[in-house]
């Protein structure tokens, strides 16, 4: 295809938006409404996902060494724990630090124990993959000189199950919404193209190749997608930024953190724009295809 022809397609697609202004309006509105829904949903899902990640990463294994073990043995145990496959980090806390922590939470009466500390040294172990926590805990429990290995048995599994389920539900909902959006938008575009079936018929009669007919429509679909994604992008950017500014300071030390506004908003915007363009293109492509058979 000649560059001149591509220029013609480009101009035609823009002109056609204006010529068919009502249809343009209908398609752009459909894209706007659905992308807005999808966008809001993605923002909520991503933040919930982050919460889930934080919860998961908060899971750790506490390994208490045998209180009678000497420093050398404890060092050996630390080495063993660190060498365990799947272990991401090991934080050592001496028996005295452990006691201080207990005194802080349970009160000064425990000061009594400072004379002879009954506690053992402790290791706080994080798994590279939080889902393998239980597996790793069981392994560590078999090492010599461990007094106790705690990781919240039962609770952790339940938490993971709930989080997994919520993630899956979120994914299904997003996919369903996307599918509905595609269907809705491509249907609207189809209607606008059906109304122009005569135009396509004439193009074919005078000897237009299929791609010559198709390209202006597909370009037009792209414009519809771009136009339709402007409002959702603006609304989501502004409102998320506001929300972030308002709430971020209040959530400083909470487990639930909002996603940082700056890369996140751009990512969501990029995704919305991409979806708008893709849906517009796809909708036009599928609709024109019907007329190009035969």
């Amino acid at each position: 295809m000649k560059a001149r022809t591509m220029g013609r397609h480009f101009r035609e697609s823009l002109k056609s938006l204006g010529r068919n202004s009502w249809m343009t309006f209908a398609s752009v509105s459909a894209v706007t409404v659905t992308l807005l829904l999808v966008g809001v949903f993605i923002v909520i899902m991503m933040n919930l996902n982050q919460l889930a990640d934080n919860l998961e990463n908060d899971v750790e294994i506490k390994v208490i060494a045998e209180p009678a073990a000497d420093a050398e043995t404890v060092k050996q145990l630390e080495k063993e724990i660190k060498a365990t496959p799947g272990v991401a980090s090991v934080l050592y806390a001496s028996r005295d630090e452990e006691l201080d922590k207990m005194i802080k939470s349970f009160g000064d009466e425990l000061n009594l124990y400072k004379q002879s500390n009954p506690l053992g040294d402790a290791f706080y172990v994080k798994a590279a993959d939080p889902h393998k926590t239980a597996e790793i805990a069981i392994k560590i429990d078999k090492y010599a000189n461990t007094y106790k290995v705690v990781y919240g048995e039962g609770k952790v599994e339940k938490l993971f199950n709930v989080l997994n389920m919520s993630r899956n539900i979120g994914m299904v909902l997003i996919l369903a919404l996307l599918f509905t959006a595609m269907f809705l938008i491509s249907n609207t575009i189809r209607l606008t193209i059906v109304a122009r079936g005569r135009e396509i018929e004439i193009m074919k009669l005078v000897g237009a190749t299929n791609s010559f007919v198709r390209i202006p429509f597909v370009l037009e679909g792209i414009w519809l997608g771009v136009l339709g994604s402007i409002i959702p992008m603006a609304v989501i950017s502004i409102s998320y930024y506001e929300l972030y500014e308002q709430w971020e300071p209040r959530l400083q030390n909470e487990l639930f953190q909002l996603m940082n506004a700056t890369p996140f908003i751009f990512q969501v915007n990029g995704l919305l724009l991409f979806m708008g363009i893709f849906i517009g293109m796809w909708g036009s492509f599928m609709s024109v295809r019907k007329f190009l058979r035969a």
Partner: protein
Amino acid sequence: MIVMKDVYKKYPNGVVAANGINVEIGRGEFVYVVGPSGAGKSTFIKMMYREERPTKGDIIVNGINLATLRNKRVPYLRRQIGVVFQDFKLLPKLNVYENVAFALEVIEESPKQIRKKVNDVLALVGLTQKARMFPNELSGGEQQRVSIARSIVNVPKVVIADEPTGNLDPETSWEIMKIFEQINARGTTIVMATHNREIVNTIRHRVIVVDGGMITRDEYEGVYGYES
């Protein structure tokens, strides 16, 4: 120019619209196709520009066998054939000039050539003054002239017309016929389906009568009629 050999066409609903058609139309001929409604006239015409495909048999137009022509090649066939319809088939949102230029844009003609060819052909059909008007601002006869201009602007070897005067009053019909005569005089083959007895009987040309999906009569300098 156009050859049909044992052409047979059966539609999915069982209607047989062509039942063994054999015909040969030479270069530069002017042929009327007449026959009652539902006799297979339209199918006969449509098969020539590959709007319909024969179920059996061969159709050769300008050396191309349409029975075996792949869909992808159809646009290139169409560029060698001009088609004119009863309902004009103009693009309502383009003006006269743009409607004619459209046929050249489609074949990626250069802007300079487009300007020249469109102006020439508009002069031929007498619409130079109305180039900037839109189809809904024109009379039926003028719209048909635009449609003819579009069909001949890239100088096809064949023009196929499906009742081009069907929607026009007698006087306008004669004007349209004059234009077809001119085009024919330049050596272009013309195949025209028509119901207009007066035209067929006055401007004498070859007459092919299609009835029941078959050619029942084929006469040079023939007259209108298919009752016999």
